């Protein structure tokens, strides 16, 4: 009986710690994933932009 009471205590403590996550249904995880993908594409664009600028300067200097 005592064992069961302890079990119940552990169970309720666990559910309290994830209450915040549950209150929002973990929607922030989805937002974060979309932000990561967007950031990745932006980084790709920046790098391509830099490469193109270098090539443009090269062409300009040699002409």
């Amino acid at each position, binding site marked *: 009986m005592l064992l069961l009471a302890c079990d119940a205590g552990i169970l*309720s403590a666990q559910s309290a710690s994830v209450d915040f*996550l549950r209150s929002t*249904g973990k929607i922030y*995880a*989805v937002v974060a*994933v979309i932000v990561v*993908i967007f950031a*990745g594409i932006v980084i790709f664009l920046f790098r391509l932009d830099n490469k193109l600028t270098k090539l443009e300067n*090269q062409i300009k200097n040699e002409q």
Partner: protein
Amino acid sequence: MKGIWWKLAGAILFLYVLIGGITVPLKPGITEVSPSHGYTGTQVQLDITGYNTHFAAAGDNRAWLKLDSVLSIPHSAITADDDNRLKANFVLPQGFASGDQTAPLTLIIDNSMDGVFVQPNAFFLTRDTTSNNVNSGGWESDALKGFHHPSGLAFPYRSILNETIRNTFFHVALWFAMFLLLIAGVYHAIKYLRTKDIDHDTRSAGYTRVALLYGVLGLITGSVWARFTWDTFWTQDIKLNMTAIAMLIYLAYLLLRTSTEDVDKRARLSAAYSIFAFVALIPLVFVIPRLTDSLHPGNGGNPALGGEDLDNTLRLFFYPSIIALTLLGVWMASLLIRYERLRYKWTFKT
């Protein structure tokens, strides 16, 4: 404006996935039931917490505790505190036919607004010392009927996953798109080795680079997703580690391409290496994780993507997302390829 349609298609499809994937609601679910256990022959009041539920608004709530495919207990009294909180009373039977001391019961709730939804193992019924090993009074055999099935699009509710089931459209689709881009990269690598046309090398490198970007994004998004569901950024999950190895093999490909200035040598080396890396990728990502325990679907005896994990409402956005991310990837790769061609032309002009 020739050749713009597929770029536009990719952008519009991805917009469709973004908007639809975020705005379509989740089906209702049960997040918490307390108390979670009780004894035979007693009465119990369950405090049920729902997610996306309309207990108060619907008003016609019904609840059951189901023992097996036949027997269940209907509620004796039920009150909705608000849309997400329900109090259901049950008169627990005197006994149940099982060799075990405790029987897991499935909680089923139905109302006209939410339809029917279940929480397996929501309540554990423990045998009282005086109770016998038979299905005694209190169990009903045909109580489960008259369920509501509301129309409208909704994603399945999965405990632990909750809203993050939407990441299927982004994280999972990213890997599928990566694989398609790698196939394009390997195709051009083989083409180069057969024809020695340097343009195939340029194309192969473009597709592989974007695929690698997708792979890295896939690892990061997976890590973020794991933080919210498995409660850690990185687990010893076999699929994670094998994929990380595959990514490192491909990172070596990028290093290889910067290692020599001799264009033909570089093309030959990287074509051969990319075929090797692709061949290594298949057992690392698709075979080894299936042989051992894994948290990923389709691995270690887990069911593959399917059933509730990928139902038809998810497919409605999952497949378009793969197409969209692939088209956007091909677009990005084509920009890289065009840049490389220009640079090549300019470098060897004189």
